[in-house]
């Protein structure tokens, strides 16, 4: 049952729980309990909203930064990752395979803001060897959602 619930709410987090239980064909109390358990167990870590900030007046720039580090003795990458993710402007930190070690996603008000963060706060960290910053120019699809999807129903109104 957990998988069914998770698969559904991953794309529809705002659904009414009673409706969810009807759609899945399961008991409502069971759904409520499962959700509570999954939240406690940190399987469900958050319910966020996907926003296209470009369509608002709010200035936002997002950057993908590849970071190479020297892992700490006894702690691997975890403590460096923590030092980076503690910053609120950092939205994501991933340990990745390949040429770099950490992938950091950062949001700022402008290119300058971000560059400043990288040079003042990120590159200066003790274990950071080098960084490579990429600015996101356009988001086509994010978190499984196509940003500019046209939802027009083109089918004939009535068909046999």
């Amino acid at each position, binding site marked *: 049952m957990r998988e069914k619930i998770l698969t*559904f709410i991953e794309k529809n987090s705002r659904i009414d729980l009673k*409706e969810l239980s009807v*759609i*899945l064909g399961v008991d409502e109390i069971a759904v409520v309990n499962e959700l509570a358990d999954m939240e406690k167990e940190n399987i469900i870590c958050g319910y966020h909203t996907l926003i296209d900030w470009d369509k608002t007046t709010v200035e936002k720039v997002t950057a993908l930064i590849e970071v190479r580090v020297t892992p700490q003795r006894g702690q691997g990458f975890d403590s460096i990752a923590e030092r980076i993710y503690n910053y609120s402007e950092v939205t994501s930190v991933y340990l990745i395979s390949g040429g770099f070690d950490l992938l950091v996603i950062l949001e700022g008000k402008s290119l300058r803001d971000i560059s400043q963060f990288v040079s003042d706060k990120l590159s200066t960290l003790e274990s950071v060897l080098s960084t490579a910053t990429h600015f996101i120019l356009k988001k086509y699809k994010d978190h499984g959602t196509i940003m500019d999807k046209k939802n027009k129903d083109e*089918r004939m*109104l*009535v*068909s*046999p």
Partner: protein
Amino acid sequence: MRNPLSNTIVNIPPSGIRKFFDIVSEMKDAISLGVGEPDFDTPWHIREEGIYTLEKGKTFYTSNAGLKELKIEISKYLERRCNINYDSNDEVVVTVGGSEAIDIALRAMIDPGDEVIIPQPSYVSYQPCTVLANGVPVIIELQDKNEFRLTKEELINAITPKTKVLVLPFPNNPTGAIMERSDLEEIAEVIIDNDLFVISDEIYSELTYKGDHVSIAELPGMKERTILINGFSKSYAMTGWRLGYACGPKEIIEQMVKIHQFAIMCAPTNSQYAAIEALKNGDDDVAEMRETYNGRRRYLMNAFKEMRLECFEPYGAFYVFPSIKEFNMTSEEFATRFLQEEKVAVVPGTAFGDSGEGFLRISYAYSLENLKLALGRLDKFVTRLREEK
């Protein structure tokens, strides 16, 4: 100038749906719950394959019965889904939708005067195609007390010495009814005893929500007397690609290919290549769509329960068939008033046969948001009607 038209065609009544469609088109901002096709786009990997084959210049005729690779995949598909083994060499024909398969099957099997048993309510084409094939349609009026399944007794009562073919349309459009193994076993007995043939329209087979779909052709003694029709329109959301297929005994398929070759040449080449991709890699997409439809189905049934609208629980296709008998008006009156007052289009059950009187076909090939909106209006309308009484 003399009359250019054939009497046969003139005497066939126009589609009941067409009339309604014309009314709905005139209305601005009507929400329609009257579609008979999926709301999903064809899965991207299938579209991609279609685009790729066009780029590669595969724009020529294929052999009449269809691309060899496609027929092999169809045969493999039926083996894994229904455990039936059809020889892709001469027991499969690829057609322009399930629609063409129905037509050529009837034309291949019917001599003037032969009777074709057609259970109703069902898809609008069976009756006209029977008439066009010079057959005589014999209608069985299915009952909602039997969940619109075909019963042994109903079948026996409809058989005469002239009966040759039974059309078996399950999962059913418009009722959403399915026939489970036990139901099929009962009628298979009657079919075999009376030496009849079956045209089994299984286009909605993947959209079955109670166990796995069972084809009558799986049952002992039935494969040799069944033409199994299926396609890609509903399972893979490929309605506009116009691709279907028929499988059956070699002698019948051979004659169907003959008609197909003269009237059509071959099914669209591009669609055939895309269909190969669909059969090879589309099982997951189908399962996902089925799950989504099922969720909507449950949602609708729950909404009807809360509105106290009588409706048997359908386990197939993407239609529900609620009864509006309590309101003492015809299906057409209800549907027309509902459209005019609440701007929601549903199809009156009578568009699918006289036995659809007192019922409506509501399609759930729509997003949940649309369904909610339409159901809200239905609730308002139904409440109003009850107050009027």
